[in-house]
């Protein structure tokens, strides 16, 4: 808006504000970094977010933690988390894409109600679901199993993803499909070869959200996974700051290791984030 010379002062103020705000935003993150690089397990931290005597001990402790059989626990937890998050992403995207496509392109009885039902599920309080879910998982023999966790996560991620994807599909012009239909393409072919490639940004965001739901979730994982070797990363990290003992250094190091994949994904997909997330909602 301020392209002319008159705007230089204003530009400076804008940048000053943005830098100040960004520093304020990043301050807690820097703090976590400092905690992780400080050798002690205490919380004695000053205002200065730069570590005084950086050491990688906390990371080393975490990565070399072993169970009774001498296997690396951290590796095990990482594999668990990766498997759960990967399965959740695959399942979530697959289910959300097909459902969103139907909601966007077909007019069928129950469409409005179905969409509404998806929205309503967002209001279910988690505490109400925990005990019944536990019972159901127990009956299905899915307790302490990664598949069970992945199933629960993908269903919790679905409503938001469906709404987002449906909105995005709505913005894709119908003419493309009509042309393909005249050429004799089946519904599935249209869905697979036309709609999905066109909706890439939204699918990327859907995948990111499914992944994040699974990767960051803590309470359900702590409820369903009672064996230490079946923990996911959040549960494992949380156990460093339990009621009895707090190892802030290990906690911070773990938090950083957990956050890295999500942050990387976020940055890789952040362009899509803006378009994928809002293209739909603009149209309603």
């Amino acid at each position, binding site marked *: 808006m301020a392209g002319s010379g008159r705007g230089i002062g204003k530009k400076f103020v804008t940048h000053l504000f943005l830098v100040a705000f960004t520093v304020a935003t*990043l301050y*807690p993150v820097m703090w976590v970094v400092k905690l992780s690089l400080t050798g002690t397990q205490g919380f004695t931290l*000053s205002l200065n977010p730069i570590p005084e005597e950086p050491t990688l001990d906390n990371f080393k402790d975490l990565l070399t933690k072993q169970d009774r059989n001498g296997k690396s626990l951290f590796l095990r937890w990482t594999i668990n988390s990766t498997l759960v998050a990967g399965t959740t992403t695959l399942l979530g995207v697959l289910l959300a894409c097909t459902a969103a496509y139907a909601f966007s392109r077909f007019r069928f009885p129950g469409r409005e109600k179905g969409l509404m039902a998806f929205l309503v599920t967002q209001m279910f*309080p988690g505490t109400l679901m925990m005990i019944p879910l536990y019972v*159901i998982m127990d009956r299905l023999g899915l307790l302490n199993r990664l598949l069970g966790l992945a199933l629960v996560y993908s269903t919790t991620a679905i409503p938001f993803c469906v709404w987002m994807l449906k909105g995005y599909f709505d913005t894709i012009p119908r003419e493309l499909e009509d042309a393909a239909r005249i050429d004799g393409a089946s519904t599935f072919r249209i869905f697979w070869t036309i709609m999905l490639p066109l909706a890439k940004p939204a699918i990327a965001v859907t995948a990111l959200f499914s992944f994040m739901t699974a990767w960051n979730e803590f309470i359900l994982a702590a409820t369903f996974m*009672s064996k230490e070797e079946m923990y996911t990363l959040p549960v494992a990290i949380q156990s460093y700051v339990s009621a009895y003992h707090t190892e802030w250094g290990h906690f911070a190091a773990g938090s950083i290791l957990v956050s890295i994949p999500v942050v990387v994904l976020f940055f890789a997909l952040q362009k899509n984030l803006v378009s994928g997330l809002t293209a739909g909602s603009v149209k309603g």
Partner: protein
Amino acid sequence: MTVDNRSAGNGNSSARGALIAFFIGVTVITAGAGVIEKRQEAIRAAELDGRCFLAQARGLARASVLAGYDELGIKRLSALLEKVKKTSPGILSINVISETKDDPLPFRRRERFIASTDSSRTGVPLDPRSYSDKRLHDERTKVVFGLKRGRHQPGPALMKEYDEPGIGKTIEVVVARKDAAGHVFTVHVKATPVLHTRPVPFMPLAAAVVFGMAIFTAFAWAAPRARGVSAFILIAAVAMGAWYAVLNDYFASAGKMEARASIRMESTAQSIIFTLPGSNRYLQGLAEDMSTGLDGRLDPHLNISPFNGVLKVNVEPENRREIGNSQAVILLPLLLLALLIYAWGATGRAGRAFSALAKHSAAYAYTAPAGLGMLMLVLAPFAFGIGLSFFRHSGGTFSFVGITNFRDILLSENRPITNPLSFYFTLLVTILWTAANVVLHVSIGLALALILKSPFLRMKAVYRVLLILPWAIPNYVTALIWKGMFNQQFGAINALLASLGLTGPDGVAWFSSFATAFTANLVTNTWLGFPFMMVVSLGALQSIPSELYEAAKVDGAGRWRRFRSITLPLLKPALFPAVILGSIWTFNQFNIIYLVSGGEPSGATDILITEAYRWAFERGDRYGYAAAYSSVIFVILLAYTLVTSRLTRATQSSMQKT
């Protein structure tokens, strides 16, 4: 069949639908009866096995060590301690003894306090309201560390099951413990189950439902237009059947189990729990407290022998286990389901649904996988949870209590509105919490988006990337870190305030007053939530054509004018869903409240969702009450969404007109 008869007359097809639905309904009921019969057998077998009883015996053993299971226990305990201090001035110290409850459900595993306080704090009452009472927490930590260093030994509970001649299956539980001084004390529980079972009267109720359906079907067939009358008859028949079943107290007395138990507590030292000169008056109080402390679970007649190193408490409880009720949990939803299916078919909706299914098979095929998953893992637990809200949970048994839970919540059990445990207090806090958060998220997010969308701004990609970082970090990590930052001694916030000269060297005790604790929560959640709104606003702003601004500029509209008349109205449709979703998320934001302030001070900053969690898992396993609490939360959110979505639709349609 119905699909083929699509062309048939409306009344005729609905009668046919009613008939089909009738058969489906009867099948469901029959199948249900089979399931229940089987389950009943299993329960009976298990009970005769004594396994059900084992849990009770264990419960007795724990209770006998002066139960402090829940906050009620602690409350009574603290009242008792006060009394003891007054009557026995020679009191030396009172030790904390804690035990860990092992449970397959991790969130139910926890320590229990058996007694608490220490001599240096004589005269300071414990705060019984909060499980996380700081002092109790410290005591507990001390004990846990003691246990770890081997100073206390949580002795394993030994259990023995045998047939006692003439009495039957008997269970003996011995819990042994060692206190700090090395004195071992033991608790013996001997219990014999006496079982009376009567089959659940499933048949009368089922018969009433089937009868009602039959009449309805007949009516639908004979007079298709008089649906109202026949529906009335159906409902009346079912209601009468249910009334009959409930009135006769069938559910409550269907199965009854009595336990005869005796509890004996021995110690090698004079100090069992309390180190004090032997005082029979005190023991009398202890016994009284035990009898009130165990209400609902035991109906004890206590006999106490003089205190000389052995405390003997003989309990003759009549502990009923209501078997029938656990089946009502299955039975009622089943009957409801049968009725729903029936109503669905009888009103002709099933027929229409079947033909729709055939006509739009592709659409349903695409939605089915997601729908099925949601049904199994979201809707089924939800329905189960709603059902749970009509039951009361106590010691592993659920009993049907109707709407008592809801009544208790809405009347707040006669607590004044200023009490943090009052529902209305929590509701007000929740509304304040949600409103403050949404306003902050939207205004900060929108302001940043407006700055960042400027085409001449350099490095905006860098800013954008850095500013969405809080979103990417798991929120439990965020919450714990912020809790640390708000720490009075070591936290960065107090250090910052002190370096700016705003506060003294002591700093602000953030979690000791409502306003500051609430602010701490708010700051944390704002940090967490503004990136989402920023991204949504950025996307929405990009979609506004720049020609509009150009035209407005030509017309001489100022910056504020352009924002008011172009940006805001065009942003509204995109922001509305985000605001609704954001407010729902904030309303149910469990992690931040639970981890940052933890409800401090004294539960004042708890919101509805954390309150529900505490009722379920921290205040005596009141699952039914918590479920009712959660149902109320759901209804509030639903009402909110219905109102706002009507608003959205109104604005959207007005948008389309312009």
